[in-house]
């Protein structure tokens, strides 16, 4: 069952310019699945959905890695250790655990990287040899958490729009390469919608599950208001049906979605 409660900020990290990672003490949140999120109270009219960047079950801690893009995320970035956040969560459908017998690709773009890291941290151990990670961002500073992957023993493939680190361009060529070599592979991806659409296309031929974690503007965050919808299968006479990111997602199978 979901909860609404105050969580204490234990530590504030600054992984990159315009980014902050709040480590909160909360056994409830630490039980979340990678890909789930919590809905954070900020001074505006609406809460802000933020995924988990790490889930330390044993320590009862979770991470919220936030990129400052507007008033709410700026407010979060100004928090200090010792203060509390008012959160609803954990919310939504997270990633399903990867199938043990398939090669596994993780793709993260921008602030889509944190949930992908949480997945690697939670399930990666068993997959060490067959886990491949591709990360993308607009430019170097925004390519966050690469170092965190390295501490898991994973060397991520990097891509930036301007080539300031890793390949110049998007993550897609690297995804396509991997797909070509791993027809029985499975994928988990999170990032901007155009990236997910491209991953979905690139991974269409895979026999394993392709799980995509989407973003959408939210009202309630708990399934009541139908604000957070995205176009989904089946496509009827009027077009695709609409499904909720907050409860039907954020993680969908690629077959469920219409881009």
């Amino acid at each position, binding site marked *: 069952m979901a*909860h*609404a409660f105050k969580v204490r900020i234990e530590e504030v990290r600054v992984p990159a310019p315009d980014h902050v990672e709040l480590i909160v003490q909360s056994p409830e949140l630490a039980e979340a699945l990678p890909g789930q999120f919590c809905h954070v109270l900020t001074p505006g*009219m609406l809460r802000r959905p933020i995924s988990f960047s790490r889930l330390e079950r044993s320590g009862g801690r979770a991470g919220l890695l936030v990129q400052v893009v507007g008033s709410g995320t700026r407010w979060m970035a100004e928090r200090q250790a010792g203060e509390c956040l008012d959160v609803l969560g954990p919310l939504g459908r997270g990633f399903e655990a990867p199938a043990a017998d398939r090669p596994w690709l993780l793709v993260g773009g921008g602030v889509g990287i944190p949930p992908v890291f949480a997945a690697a941290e939670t399930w990666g151990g068993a997959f060490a040899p067959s886990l491949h990670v591709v990360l993308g961002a607009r430019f170097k500073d925004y390519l966050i958490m690469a170092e965190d992957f390295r501490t898991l023993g994973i060397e991520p493939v990097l891509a930036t729009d301007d080539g300031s680190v890793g390949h110049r361009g998007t993550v897609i060529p690297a995804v396509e390469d991997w797909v070509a070599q791993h027809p029985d592979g499975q994928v988990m991806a999170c990032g901007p919608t155009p990236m997910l659409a491209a991953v979905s296309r690139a991974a269409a031929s895979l026999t394993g599950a392709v799980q995509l974690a989407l973003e959408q503007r939210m009202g309630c965050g*708990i399934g009541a208001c139908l604000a*957070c919808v995205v176009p989904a299968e089946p496509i009827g006479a009027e*077009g695709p049906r609409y499904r909720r990111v907050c409860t039907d997602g954020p993680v969908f199978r690629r077959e469920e979605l219409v881009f």
Partner: protein
Amino acid sequence: MDLTVRLPRGLVLKNPVMAASGTFGFGPEYAAYVDLNRLGGVSVKGISPEPWRGNPPPRVWETPAGLLNSIGLQNPGMDVFLQEDVPFLRTVDTAVIANIIGHTVEEYARVAARLSQEPRIDAFEVNISCPNIKEGGITFGHDPDQAFRVMQAVRAVTEKPVMVKISPNTAEPWVVAEAVVAAGADMISAINTLVGMAIDFKARRPALGGRTGGLSGPAVKPVAVRIVYEIASRVQVPVIGMGGIESAEDVLEFLMAGAQAVMVGTITFQHPERMLEIIDALPKVLQTYGFASLREAVGAALPSRKENGWT
């Protein structure tokens, strides 16, 4: 303090605080956060005879002290509602109000007739903010004649208490209220959202997928209080007030303007537990301003409260 509210046709609320339609789903969604048994009532999301798809996303946008939404009345239709949500509603002890919508007078009548047979539905709230697709898309609630016809058709098919929800987007919302009372409405609820828009600078287009949206939240409270006051000054049936309520003081403001009960919407997204806090705080707030009972506060700011038969 006794907070019970007695409304027409035997509709009784434990207290005057209900969840506003569209902000509380069909009931089960918020059950993990709010003990529904403590609420005065729940007005469920708008229900049409057939499923409605709703508007393209994005569907919400923040504005100063307000929220724009363009959900477009997405709902799975009355059959799915009866099958999937009414069983849950049977497990809770609060007034259940079915908010109903249609694109034609016949659709309103159809959904009212069908849901009228379901004992768990305690009352109807007729949302006349839908465009009449037969008559060129003009919103039912903007035309007293069309609003009259909708209410008349609903009245013909149900003995349950019926309130009609008034749009704030006309010059004289009370004219529509008077029309639906003439057609047999037992109560008025007011207000629905104001039409508004925001621009997405990057996309260079209106921010909401549906272009315009409905404005709700604290920003609209003064508009809502005024409309409740004007309607309560003119019609003899009870008024259910709403628009921007976020505290027990706000509830008192609507009561004094003539509302017998209220609904709480947008603030629930921020604070799911706020309705319960308001219910807890209400007796104290009433006392602070010298009201010995809920009843005393109702209409206390109206010009000729006594002539209106309130005391």
